[in-house]
Structures are given as C-alpha cells and as structure tokens.
C-alpha cells in the first residue's frame, strides 16, 4: 500500500511534468533567446538632405521586384513635405513618386491640387520611405500562420506560398509599408531586395539613386560606412515611441515627418 503523503507527492510530480510542453525546454536555450546572426544585420540609411524627389528608386524597385507598374501599390515611396510660414504642413506622394515630383502643386488626392506660393513656404523636402525591418516587427507577431518571419540577418520576409491573405500584418504595421499584392494575392513588402543583398549587391533603390540618398549596410561590421554614420551621426528613426526598433535610419529627419 502507498502512503497518502507519497501518493500526493507522486501525483504533483506527474501533473507538473505533464503540464510542461516539450517546447518549454527549448525556449530557455540562450541561443534562441538572443536570436540573430553575429556577423550580419542589415540596416538602411536615408539622407533626406540629398533626396531631390526624382523617384528613380521607386520605379527601379517596382521593376526589380515585379510590382505591377501601374497599380497604386509600391514597396518604397517618396513623400514630399511642405511647411508654410504660418505652420501648416502638407504632404503628398503622387503614385508613390514613381514618376518623381514634377508638379509644384500639392496633390491632395481625388484630382484636387493645392497651390502654395513660394513666399509662403518655410521649408520643403523629400523623405523616402521603405520597410524598417524592425527588430521587434509587429507585422510578424500578428501573423496567425507563420507566413512572415524575421531572418537572423534582420530582414523580414513573407512566404507567398504560406500566406493566407488575412491582412492582419498590413493593419499591424505602424509604418504602412505592407500592402496586398494584386497578382499573387498575398501580403507584400520591401525586403531590402533580399535576392540582391544575399548576392553581394545592393538594393535596387540604392543602386538607382543618383545622389547617394539611400545606403544599405551591415550593423555588425564596425567599419561599414553606414554603421559608422548610424553610430556617430545624428540619425533618427520613424515612430520610435512604438518600440518596434526600426532599422532604417534617417539623417535630417524633421518633426513633421510621420
């Protein structure tokens, strides 16, 4: 006969053992806790002082990544900001600046334009946008099927075969960089031209920019010029308060930029 005390002891051990899923033993593995590649972490640097709004980056991106050219979706785009002397801020990005900025009027959408006189303008500048390849990507967290994920080198990818097109990630991205691919009918986003950077090339937008406003680099290489600028220069990131730890750094960011 088993004693009551012993029986209870054994029962607790068995229940505790059963309630631990096998997965729990793997989560304490430090390698997985500090996930990431030791020698490679892709980062991006945008110098807004250099950007002139030509939009060559956008057209190159659309062709390189086979995004339908005339569909109003794009992986990267350029925004024009215009601040007037009386403190009003205007921003536009006609067709994502695929054809650059050729009209001095602000495109308000739906065929409406706003003319602003030269003498009213306090400042006007261009800001290229793309996926921030966040260290804490909210888009990945909300995916219910594991179709989007962060590669150890930092890039966030979408598995086109696995995506069910629910659109949670599109809503989850605070930067609005995700969209629905009109042909593949899955979530789509910038991936720093993963097929190029893994071949030792640069992203198509970086190669297309005549002014050097876009640069890509490796944060784990202290001698990388981009990393040097990010570490020592006065850089900013977009929506820092969201805690996403975005990895696209901006030189010359202004408070009007969202």
């Amino acid at each position: 006969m088993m004693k009551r005390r012993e029986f209870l002891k054994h029962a607790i051990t068995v229940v505790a053992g059963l309630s631990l899923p096998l997965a729990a033993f793997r989560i304490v593995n430090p390698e997985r806790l500090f996930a990431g590649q030791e020698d490679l972490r892709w980062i991006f640097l945008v110098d807004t002082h250099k950007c002139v709004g030509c939009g060559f980056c956008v057209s190159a991106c659309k062709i390189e990544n086979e995004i339908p050219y005339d569909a109003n979706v794009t992986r990267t785009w350029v925004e024009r900001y215009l601040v007037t002397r009386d403190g009003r801020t205007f921003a536009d990005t006609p067709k994502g600046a695929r054809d650059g900025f050729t009209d001095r009027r602000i495109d308000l959408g739906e065929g409406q334009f706003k003319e602003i006189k030269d003498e009213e303008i306090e400042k006007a500048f261009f800001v290229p946008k793309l996926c921030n390849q966040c260290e804490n990507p909210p888009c990945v967290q909300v995916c219910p099927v594991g179709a989007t994920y962060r590669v150890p080198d930092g890039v966030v990818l979408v598995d086109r075969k696995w995506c069910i097109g629910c659109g949670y990630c599109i809503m989850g991205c605070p930067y609005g960089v995700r969209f629905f691919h009109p042909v593949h009918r899955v979530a789509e986003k910038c991936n720093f031209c993963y097929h190029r950077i893994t071949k030792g090339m640069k992203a198509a937008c970086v190669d297309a920019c005549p002014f050097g406003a876009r640069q890509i680099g490796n944060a784990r290489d202290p001698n990388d010029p981009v990393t040097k600028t990010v570490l020592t220069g006065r850089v900013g990131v977009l929506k820092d308060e969201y805690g996403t730890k975005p990895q696209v750094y901006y030189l010359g960011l202004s408070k009007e930029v969202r």
Partner: protein
Amino acid sequence: MRNHVWRPLYLVIGVIALLLLVRTLVVPEDFGSHESGYMYGWHRKGNEAEWRQVAVKYRTTAYCKDCHSEKYDSIRNSPHGIIPCEDCHGPGMAHPDDPAKLPIDRSRQLCLRCHAQLPSPSSGRDAIRGIDPTGHNPGTECSLCPPPHHPSVSEMQ
C-alpha cells in the same frame, strides 16, 4: 469499459489523433521556429531560398562598364555622371542576350524628375537647374537641345 464515460473519451482521442495526422501531412517538414526563436521565427525554412532566387534585373553601372567603357569614361566627368546608366536605359536584365537592345527612355517626363523647378528649400532639389514644365518648350523632347550625356548650358547659348 464500455460505458458512457469512456465512449466520449475515445472520440476525443480519435479527433486529436486525426488532427495530428492531418498536421503531419499538411505542415512541411522545414516549418518551425528556427534561429529567430519563437517570437519572430516561425516559418518555412525553404522560403528563404525562394526569395534568394528572384532574378536580378538592374545590373548596375559596373556591369555596363565592362562593354561600354568608352561611354562610361566620357559621362563620368559630366554633371550627369552621377546618374546610373539603367535609370534612363532601363534594367539591363540579361543584355546583350536578352534583350539585345535596351529601350532608352527619352521622354520629357524622365528629365522632369529632377529638372522640373519646385520650390524646395531645405532639400538638394534647389541646387539643380530647373525649368517650368508648362512654359519651357512644351511638348518637345528635351534631348533635342542638351545632349543627355554632356549637358552644358553655356554650350547651348
């Protein structure tokens, strides 16, 4: 053992077994949490290779230089020397095999990307010579006046 307590239990066990069976059939073997851990790492490992296989279309100026070194050398010192070849000539793809000839974009729209005058203080755009697209020889191809590889305003005047 054939009583009202055990029968539903068998049913539940059966359903669980069926779900596990379906899961092993549907979920690919390389699906898992992999290196990025549980929070951000769930994916099909094979997809990384799929993304790497996307064809490169823009081959960069370095690729053009191999054959067109003369053109390359001559444009380098002109104000347009900073513009990558493929911005105007289109993506190199597998040229010269496919396509044999690259279509050059000579449209006014292309030049206007930089040379439409916009009031943009606090941006590099102001340093570029600009024209008013509606007033400056409307409808004419820009390259009729300044040669795109060697634009020089003083020579035109």
